[in-house]
Structure formats: C-alpha cells, structure tokens
C-alpha cells in the first residue's frame, strides 16, 4: 500500500474547531479521504486515517440530516454541473430557479440523469464539484 501522508495543518485546524465549538468529534469524508478528530476518550483508536475503528455511540456525519433547502442526490454516480465538458453550468449561486428546471446531471451506469429543482427558489450554495462522485443522500446544492 502507498505511504500514508498526513495533512498536519488540517488536523490542527480541526482540533481548534473542536475547542471553539465545544464539539467532541468532527468527522469529515470526501471521496477516498476521511478524517476524524475526537476529544472524547483519552485513547480513541485511530489505526490509520482511512481505517477508523468504531467508537461507541458516536453517530457519523452521514446520519445527521442535510441542511434546510438542501437538494440531495437520489442516486450514486458522477455529478456534472453543465451539459458538456467546459460548457456553461446549469445554475450558479444566486440564480433564481423554477421548479422542475434541470440543475445538474448525475451519470450512473453511463446514463445521464438530469436532476430537476424540487422547488422554485434561489441557489444559495453549490455543494458539489463538476465531475466528482456523489453518494446517495449527499447534498448537491441548497435552494431557498
């Protein structure tokens, strides 16, 4: 296996966040990377960054609800923000969208699935990047 590289600055930043917010744990996962910092038990087990042993009764981020107005992914796949590579994005932050308007595309098993806006509103945030994989239930963007 490849040599593990640890982003020290990121660890320090999250450690400070724990202090500032009074949280006991922060877990963060993107693509193949996952980091979990915890100030709960003195000897919290961390075998490797990617192989975190189960800690009792600490629900991961995935089990918490998405923010209000979030549009979540209805499937696993690859997310595209425009209809062709390099093309104009379907929506940008600040755009007004109408209900049913295509806001992005998710490719799954070589099929392009247009994702419609569930409600009319203003795009407050785009939570995904073009060409990046998305999981089921992952927040794609926020409209309100």
């Amino acid at each position: 296996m490849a040599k593990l590289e640890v982003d020290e600055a990121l660890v320090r930043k999250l450690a400070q966040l724990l202090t500032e917010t009074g949280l006991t744990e922060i877990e963060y996962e993107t693509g193949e990377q996952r980091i979990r910092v915890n100030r709960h038990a003195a000897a919290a087990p961390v075998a490797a960054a990617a192989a975190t042993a189960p800690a009792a009764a600490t629900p991961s981020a995935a089990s918490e609800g998405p923010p209000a107005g979030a549009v979540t992914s209805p499937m696993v796949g690859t997310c595209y923000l425009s209809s062709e590579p390099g093309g104009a994005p379907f929506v940008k932050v600040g755009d007004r969208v109408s209900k049913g308007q295509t806001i992005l595309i998710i490719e799954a098993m070589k099929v392009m699935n247009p994702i419609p806006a569930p409600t009319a509103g203003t795009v407050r945030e785009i939570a995904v990047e073009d060409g990046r994989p998305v999981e089921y239930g992952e927040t794609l963007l926020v409209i309100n």
Partner: protein
Amino acid sequence: MFEKVLIANRGEIALRIHRACREMGIRTVAVHSTADADAMHVRLADEAVCIGPPPSRQSYLNVPAILSAATIAGADAIHPGIGFLSENAEFAAMVEEHGFAFIGPEPAHIRLMGDKVAAKDAARSLGIPVVPGSDGAIADDVEAMDLADRIGYPVLVKAAAGGGGKGMKVAQARGEMAEALALARAEAKANFGNDAVYLEKYLSHPRHIEIQILADAHGNVVHLGERDCSLQRRHQKLLEEAPSPALNASQRRQIGELATGAMRRLGYRSAGTIEFLYQDGEFYFIEMNTRLQVEHPVSEMITGIDLVREQIRVATGAPLDFRQEDVTFTGHAIECRINAENPVTFAPSPGRITDYHAPGGLGVRVDSALYSGYKVPPNYDSLIAKLVVHGNTRNECLMRLRRTLEEFVIGGVETSIPLHRRLVTAADFINGDYDIRWLEKFVQPQS
C-alpha cells in the same frame, strides 16, 4: 491480486469479507444504505459509499447503484456476500460486463442451480443422488404401486400443483397406497383444481447435511467435509456443526468424492455448498448454494482454511494451492446463530445495543458487527452474531460452547442466546441425536 474490492453486502458478513481483504492487503469499499451509515464494516472500510435508503430493494439490491459505486471507487472486484444479490445470475453477469471481477461462480452455474427443477436434473446427470420418485405426474394407481415397490416404503404422494403441505399423504406400506392416492388427489383437486399427483420416497427422520466445495478455474476441486445443519426452525438454521455426529470417516470421504467429482464435471468455480437430506446411510440432493454460507466458519475451524480468502484468490484466476490430500480435519466446531429476536416467540427485536461483550479465550471465534451503542436497524435480517467454538473433541466443543454462552453479553435487544443456553443442555443435542424436525418440537412452548 486485486487492489480494491467492493463489498456488496452488510452486517457480519460484510465485516467478514472486509477482514479477509485486509489480511490479503486489499483495500475495501463498503456500500451501505442510510440505515447502515454507522455500521462497523462501513467504519473499518478504506472507503464507504452510501447507495440508497434503508429498503433493500433501493440499496443492497440496487444493481445500478452498486455498479456506479464500484465505478466511482475504482474497484477491481465485487464480493456479493450472502443473500441480497449473491445468487442473482444477472447481477453476476453485469458485474463482469462492467469489467469487474465477480467473486463467485460463473453466472451460468448460478442460474442453473437457482432453478430448482433444472438443478435437480443437473444433479442427477452429474451422478448426485436425488430423492427417488416419479419423474412427473403418475398415470394411475397401478403405476404408482409398482413405482412405490421399487423405491421402497414409506412413500409420499404429493400434489403436482401443490404446496404448503396440502395434497400430501404418506403411505407406510402397499396396503395404504390406494387410500393415500385417493385422498391426495381429492385434496389436490379441492385446493389447486388439479388432481395430478406424483410420488417421492418419504424421509421420516432425515438430517440436513451439506458438503462444502471449493474449486478454482483450472479444474481443481476440493471438499472441506460436511456440516450438519439439521437444527432448523421454519427452514432457518439455528446451530450448525462439523463434522456431523451421524457420519463416519468413510461416509465423509465417499460423499466428498462424489461431490468433488460432480463439480469437476460441471466445471464449477469458487465456493459452493451441496445440500443433502441424509437418512439411513443414504444422501439425497436438495439444492446447491452457489455462494458462501452463513455457517462457513465451522468448516474453516476444522480445516484451518479461510474460505473467503480462497474465494478471492480463485476469482483472480489463481489455482488452489492445496489438494484434497492436504485438507485435514481437526477436532469439532459448532456455530450458534445469534439473532435479535425473542428466544421464545421469535419476534424480531431491533434496537440500540446497550452492552456488548463477546466471550474470549481458547477455541472461540465471534463474527459480529455489533458494538456497544450500535443500533440494530429493523430493515434487515435478524442475525447479529455468530459464536463459533472449536474443541479437540465434540464433548470439549460442547463444554466450551456452554462456557462461552455464559460469558456472552448482548444488552438492549432480545437475542436467541437463552435458547442456545437451553439447547446445549438438551440430552438429544448432547448425544447428537436429532433430525430436521427435532428443533421445531424443542422450541414449542411447554404446555
């Protein structure tokens, strides 16, 4: 060797597969429903992908989602585990079409053994004994009686269109045949609108004995002996042991050679299990499972062979690195299936695990994805832990099993542990004197 394997399953078997991968230096991708975001295999895997909401149809049975997850994670191979898509020939074919290795048999063999009639025909043509009987509906009483004389009494008259025990009559001797045929035909007519019946040898006290097969893509086939899975309730196995208290070494070798010969002729690859009914020294084919079985650990415990590792190895195209003569059988192993259910009513008992403490020590193996604080979701199978115990003799194994059942603590949900504690003190079980109907009587509430 594979770099990265996607585990298309959940619970203890997903953890089992993860462990085998880790021990081979293979990275793992867990796929999970939203209900399993906190599952142990998800936490331990190198990567995790949420593939859908809790219902299995939308997650663990969702083929496009699983294949998309494999694509975006860049997996080389998919292990289907047990249940879910593990015996779905179309899934296996699609996995291969999408360029992933399927850790299991060829789709054609999954398909063949998935069709009960075709499987029985295949077994017969491969030289595996099946329950003797009429090949189809019988024409008249004379044909029926002639056939019954040939296969030997008692015989079972069964409605051809039947099910659920309706239109089924046992004839203990020739003198009872006319009445059995008449009654079965009448019930068949009344229940299914069709009075066609067929004959089968009636097994009054069979055991469920199955042979573990392991085969590579180069024609090498070995067996890891048998498992006795006669302790069943409503066709759900509760406790399995190996070797069977009913077989001796020569019977073991005989049925093992028969099974490996048949699989060699079939060209079977990967792990598989041939299930038999066994009575009075004779084996009768029931079905073949073209996948890993829940009870595979008992075979691992007496042979020292890691079945999941071997499944993965042969899926890469590697040949088995041992032959039948290298497989040795040491001691005795028993597995208790621990379910989250009431031990008397068998009502499911999902919920949060408040205490979890597995037994330890010599000869003890626990396969479980539970941990203190884990919430057993209500959406899936109730199997939450497998307690597997090995001893040099069956008696040592039983004593160890009793000791470990005393030590096992699972709080917060009801479990079958109290039933297992009761079972291991039952004289018939201790004597190995049980058949496939024994447990149903044992679990009946005392009146």
